[in-house]
């Protein structure tokens, strides 16, 4: 009874809340980091050093008037932000945050569930998120959002192919699709997969930037060309859902990259003997630390690089990333047969 219902429910509640808090504070972190890059202070007024700014933002967004355009398709207009948000959150179901911990006389694995198709589950759930963006733009019944959503969905579909092809070579190295077993494979190999599959790592990170609509690939919200983007007609909490889903997706991509390439909950350099003193640090702290590094790189890239032009983006996706990903799969296969 406790094992089948209580523990999973507690874990789900905990992970969902932690994610949502993480998402709101990602917004603050982004404003702060970009401000520091540009030699500004960032939010400073609400709370010490602006630390309560996310709460002020949330109250503002909830209290704002929620407008549905008169000619909009009401049902689809309402559903679109939900369709974006749900896949971003349910992806966390298969991400392992750490090895099993011993609490109250039970071994509790630190992930909601471990399915044998975990990685494919993440890819397929992420592919559902595209609908929210397409439908949000279409249902607004306004030309700029429609154009933006067509752009965004073309971008997401193109980069999805590249990312999935990249993951194939990683799956070949790990020999499994289960997220937990991928980390265990890195543990038994005493090597993070970033050193085995460096090409795949770079491709995955570029693809991840594009999949989350982040700079330099934030084509969906090119303000200068599209007066905003696919969410131009959205206001209040519905806009906030689109906004938060983007940050949730960033956390998902970072957590997946950590699990696949940086050894998940493993301590750094498990093959170096004199680093063994690091073993006292619990696994989940390593996991959060590595995920945070990825998130910081996301913000850093946004503050540094200008936006790609649309045709350059498509050329990069189809003519560079996909061929390199396929070549990487072939190379991985050859290496696997030879060694």
């Amino acid at each position, binding site marked *: 009874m406790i094992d089948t219902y209580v523990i999973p429910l507690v874990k789900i509640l905990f992970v969902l809340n932690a994610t949502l808090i993480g998402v709101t504070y990602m917004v603050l972190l982004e404003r702060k980091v970009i401000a520091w890059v540009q030699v500004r202070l960032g939010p400073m007024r609400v709370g010490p050093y602006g630390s309560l700014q996310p709460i002020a933002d949330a109250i503002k967004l909830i209290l704002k008037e929620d407008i549905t355009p008169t000619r909009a398709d009401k049902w689809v207009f309402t559903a679109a932000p939900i369709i974006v948000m749900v896949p971003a959150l349910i992806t966390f179901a298969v991400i392992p945050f750490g090895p099993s911990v011993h609490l109250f006389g039970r071994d509790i694995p630190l992930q909601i569930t471990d399915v044998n198709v975990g990685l494919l589950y993440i890819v397929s759930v992420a*592919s559902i998120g595209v609908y929210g963006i397409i*439908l949000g733009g279409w249902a607004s019944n306004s030309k700029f959002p429609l154009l933006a959503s067509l752009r965004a969905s073309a971008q997401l579909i193109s980069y999805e192919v590249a990312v999935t092809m990249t993951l194939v070579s990683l799956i070949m190295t790990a020999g499994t699709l289960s997220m937990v077993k991928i980390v265990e494979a890195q543990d038994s190999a005493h090597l993070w997969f970033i050193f085995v599959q460096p090409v795949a790592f770079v491709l995955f990170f570029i693809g991840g930037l594009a999949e989350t609509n982040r700079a330099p690939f934030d084509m969906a919200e090119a303000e200068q060309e599209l007066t905003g983007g696919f969410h131009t007609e959205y206001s209040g909490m519905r806009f906030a859902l689109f906004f938060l889903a983007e940050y949730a997706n960033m956390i998902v991509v970072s957590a997946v990259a950590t699990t696949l390439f940086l050894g998940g909950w493993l301590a750094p350099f498990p093959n170096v003997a004199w680093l063994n003193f690091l073993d006292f640090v619990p696994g989940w702290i390593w996991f959060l630390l590595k995920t945070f590094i990825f998130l910081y790189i996301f913000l850093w890239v946004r503050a540094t690089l200008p936006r790609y032009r649309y045709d350059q983006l498509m050329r990069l996706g189809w003519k560079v990333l996909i061929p390199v990903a396929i070549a990487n799969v072939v190379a991985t296969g050859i290496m696997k047969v030879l060694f």
Partner: protein
Amino acid sequence: MGNAIAFYVTAALILGFALLVISTKNTVHAVLFLVLNFLAVAALYVLLTAQFLAVIQVLVYAGGIVVLYLFVVMLVNLKRQPEDHSAPQRRPWLGFGLSAVVLAQLAAILVWGGAGMPVDPQTMQNTDLAVNNVERIGMLLYTDYLIPFEVASMLLLVAMVGAIILAKREL
């Protein structure tokens, strides 16, 4: 018991969404109901402990192909009423007859083919098939079903070449 309830609920959802797909006037809504239909079918696969198939169903159909449908439907802007589309050369009876034949075939398979549920899914939960789903499918595809698998991939290749030739008259 729980499995039976889950099965009938999913089956009802599949049929309900399928009906909505063909009865909705708005084309975009029809495509959305198609997505929900595919998701319900994926749930059915999960009930049959075919997790790999379920995930691929979502990835390929719900997340891939239907997005392209939606693209086309949105771009051609089908705001006209369906009455305007009535084609004089359409033969509703032919379609009706063909679907009746398919229905009869399915019924025949159900009655004589022994297509009942072979084992109770509850007992399948921890078997080798459930735990090593991906490995088992891979092994079958590359041993027993190698020829059909290759033929299917040839078919996709032919379709791809055909699409390229149709889209680009002068290569």
